[in-house]
């Protein structure tokens, strides 16, 4: 439980804490995001802030970085109480932060992006050559290669993260906050990042490392502070804990791992329900990824997992599968043998495919509209909710009630706006709306992204049950644990190309990691040359 050191502001060896939070509280309308949370970070320590989605980690660090103001509580920096008025003030103190959703400007260059985070009048202001030199120096010495003149929209996710890190390092921070940094990296890239962080720590910079990934916390961090539901659960040394004990502290109880029954008959005897054959889609916009020669086949009863680092063509693939972007060739996509490449989403649904896109707010649902109306979006034809263009309100409401009750969606009712639901409940609605339609093929993108553990387990079980009933399922996910838990076969998408699918039992995380980094089996696999998946080449 909580650390026994009570002497105010001093560590056991008598030095002042780098950062000390005492009973910090922050409430948003309807949510108590942080409830009297305390946190002590020693100088030069790598300190984990552990918690699942929605535990209040991001809110807490936003207060440290001055983006949010605490409602109550104290923040002390190097032993002195401080009032951090904003990010500029935080940076002036020596706090740097690398955001989970990067705070970068797509239309600006690397050096412009970095200049914006430096204080006005910094010795290398705006486009001076000094800045370019300094970027080159820092990026070289920490192994973070960057081209100062490149535009951000041309860079890969890994390179973008490097900009954020270099931007912090240029200001010689005493504390570096990293918000879920590895969620966008391949395992190999993550290891390189850990080396950089250890090096920084050895040079005296404390690191506050936010994550919900237990293994990497045990590998990297010396101390862990654990949050659950906005409250402090405890502090521990993660190196002395097991993954299971950390998980118990983070989640409260060991979550039920979805269990797959072994298939009774041979997979190869079953019919192919979805076939994608040489699908290529040039990127529709300047900052997108082009899909290159993608082939997939999924049989009845099978779940195919598609892994990959965010931004490698997943959303483009999803758009092409839904039919938001049409293919040039009708045969590029076939449902139960029928070519659908040139058909729109409505026609594809009639043939038995349903979809759950990644973004639940605004893509899968219209947030301002009632759940009952959102049911109409994808189910009007399959469920007969309209007749000759007129909406059958009884059927419409019945369908929405059915989804809400079968998927255990917590809501004020089917007339509540979709946007008023919590992430987990809205996701259960979005997935449930498609599964209740009993599709022959279901394609889901990031089915449990940003969802609480209970809802995630529920959704994963629903996908498994759907496959068991004879549907073919594709689950695109960044979460490797999820893919290994639910999928029969796994393929990896990288720079718009999809690897061959392999049975999950035949591959290791390491192999998947290499594929995520764009290295294919049989390639001269020198990991030191691993380059993160990038934009269209």
């Amino acid at each position, binding site marked *: 439980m909580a650390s026994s050191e009570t002497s105010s502001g001093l560590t056991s060896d008598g030095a002042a804490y780098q950062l000390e939070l005492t009973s910090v509280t922050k409430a948003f309308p309807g949510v108590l995001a942080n409830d009297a949370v305390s946190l002590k970070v020693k100088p030069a320590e790598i300190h984990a802030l552990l918690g699942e989605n929605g535990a209040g980690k991001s809110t807490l660090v936003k207060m440290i970085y001055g983006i949010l103001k605490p409602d109550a509580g104290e923040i002390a920096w190097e032993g002195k109480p401080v009032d951090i008025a904003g990010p500029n003030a935080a940076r002036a103190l020596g706090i740097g932060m690398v955001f989970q959703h990067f705070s970068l400007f797509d239309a600006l260059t690397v050096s412009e992006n970095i200049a914006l985070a430096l204080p006005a009048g910094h010795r290398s202001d705006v486009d001076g050559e000094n800045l370019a030199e300094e970027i080159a120096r820092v990026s070289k010495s920490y192994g973070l290669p960057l081209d100062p003149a490149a535009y951000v929209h041309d860079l890969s996710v890994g390179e973008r993260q490097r900009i954020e890190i270099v931007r912090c390092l240029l200001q010689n921070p005493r504390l570096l906050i990293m918000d879920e940094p590895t969620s966008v990296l391949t395992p190999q890239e993550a290891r390189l990042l850990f080396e950089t962080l250890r090096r920084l720590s050895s040079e005296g910079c404390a690191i506050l490392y936010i994550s919900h990934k237990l293994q990497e916390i045990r590998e990297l961090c010396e101390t862990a502070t654990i949050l659950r539901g906005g409250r402090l659960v405890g502090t521990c040394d993660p190196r002395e804990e097991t993954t299971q004990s950390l998980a118990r502290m983070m989640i409260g109880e060991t979550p039920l791992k979805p269990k797959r029954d072994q298939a009774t008959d041979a997979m190869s005897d079953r019919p192919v329900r979805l076939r994608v054959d040489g699908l290529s889609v040039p990127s529709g916009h300047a900052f997108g990824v082009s899909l290159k020669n993608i082939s997939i086949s999924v049989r009845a009863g099978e779940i195919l997992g598609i892994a990959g680092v965010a931004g490698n063509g997943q959303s483009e693939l999803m758009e092409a599968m839904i039919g938001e972007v049409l293919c040039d060739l009708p045969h590029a996509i076939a449902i139960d043998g029928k070519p659908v490449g040139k058909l729109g*989403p409505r026609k594809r649904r009639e043939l038995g495919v349903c979809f759950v896109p990644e973004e639940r707010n605004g893509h899968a649902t219209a947030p301002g509209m009632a759940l009952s109306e959102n049911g109409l979006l994808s189910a009007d034809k399959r469920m007969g909710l309209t007749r000759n263009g007129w909406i059958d309100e009884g059927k419409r409401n019945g369908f929405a009630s059915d989804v809400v009750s079968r998927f255990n969606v917590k809501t004020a009712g089917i007339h509540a706006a979709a946007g008023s639901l919590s992430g987990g409940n809205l996701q259960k609605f979005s997935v449930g709306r498609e599964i209740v339609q009993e599709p022959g093929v279901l394609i889901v993108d990031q089915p449990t992204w940003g969802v609480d553990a209970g809802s995630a387990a529920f959704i994963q079980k629903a996908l498994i049950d759907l496959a068991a009933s004879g549907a073919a399922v594709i689950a695109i996910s960044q979460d490797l644990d999820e893919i290994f838990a639910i999928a029969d076969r796994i393929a990896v998408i990288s720079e718009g190309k999809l690897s061959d699918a392999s049975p999950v039992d035949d591959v290791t995380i390491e192999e998947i990691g290499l594929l995520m980094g764009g290295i294919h089996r049989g390639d001269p696999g020198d990991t030191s040359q691993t380059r993160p998946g990038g934009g269209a080449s």
Partner: protein
Amino acid sequence: MIRLEPKGEDSRVMSRFSPVIAIALTVVTGGILFGLLGKPPGASLYAYFISPLSTLYGVSELGVKATPLILIGLGLAIGFRAGVWNIGAEGQFTLGGICGGALGLAFYEIDSILLMPAMLVAGILGGMAWASIPAFLKTRFNANEILVSLMLTYVAVLLLSYLVHGPLRDPDGFYFPESRLFHDAAMMPNLISGTRLHWGVLFVPLGAIAIWLLLSKTILGFQLKVYGQAPRAARFAGYKEPRIIWFSLLLGGGLAGLAGILEVGGTIGQLTPVISPGYGFTAIIVAFLGRLHPLGVVLGGLMMALTYIGGENAQIEIGLPSAVTGLFQGVLLFYLLACDVLIKYRIRIGSGRSARV
């Protein structure tokens, strides 16, 4: 410092009341303005908002002015719901007047009961044709419909001016820039004798009910709303963007064109260089004042019609400048937009940080 906190869900109560608050604030502002102009505020406001309605003629004029405003406003409300910003209704109105009016003049000698219906159809088609230009350029070339439809308004007004100065000028009119007066068969019959109110006013309830059914009962109306609120969700559902843009603009243009021919063939009785006191623009306010809801648009149209006849009345009775009308309309829209913040947000006064515990 003022802070806004999202309510999460839109307040239905505020959604109904914010137009009422906006109107009240406009009236108060009007009173102050009249005072500043050296007129007695009470008497001025009475002359503006009350006394026009004290006679049958006044009430009938309200109908005369509200008819085009509501018809155009209904069409615009559909477009704005879909996020299609047709602000060239004034031009579509003008084209409706030109096409319907030209037909009436072409069959000047013909005395057939079919002439008026034919003129209405011509007017509707004229408005739709004018609106099809921004629809085509938007769907084909991605050209901004706001600027295109607005530019076409200037073109339409110039076209009307050219026609009444040239080809459609009354040959016996001593070079006066006006067409001949329409024949009886080319005129909308009068509804109440002694007033200018004609049968065209019946299009208002018809139109309002039809638009209400479209918006609340049909999948097409639902598609328009989804496209306006969450365009990505509309693409996910598979609704076709060009179809929604074409439908919104053609419907808006058709209703504006209908309003135009009703004005020319029902109220004015001939083509003149100016056939609208800015109905096409005022209808934008009508649509917002009515919360883009058909019933609201009817009420909003009556309210805005009152600012027109109130302005005329106040000019006669108190000597207020007629430009006050435009000013009032602009102020009302400002207040309305400001009050709308109450629908989505809760206003908190005080600093961002509450006292430390």
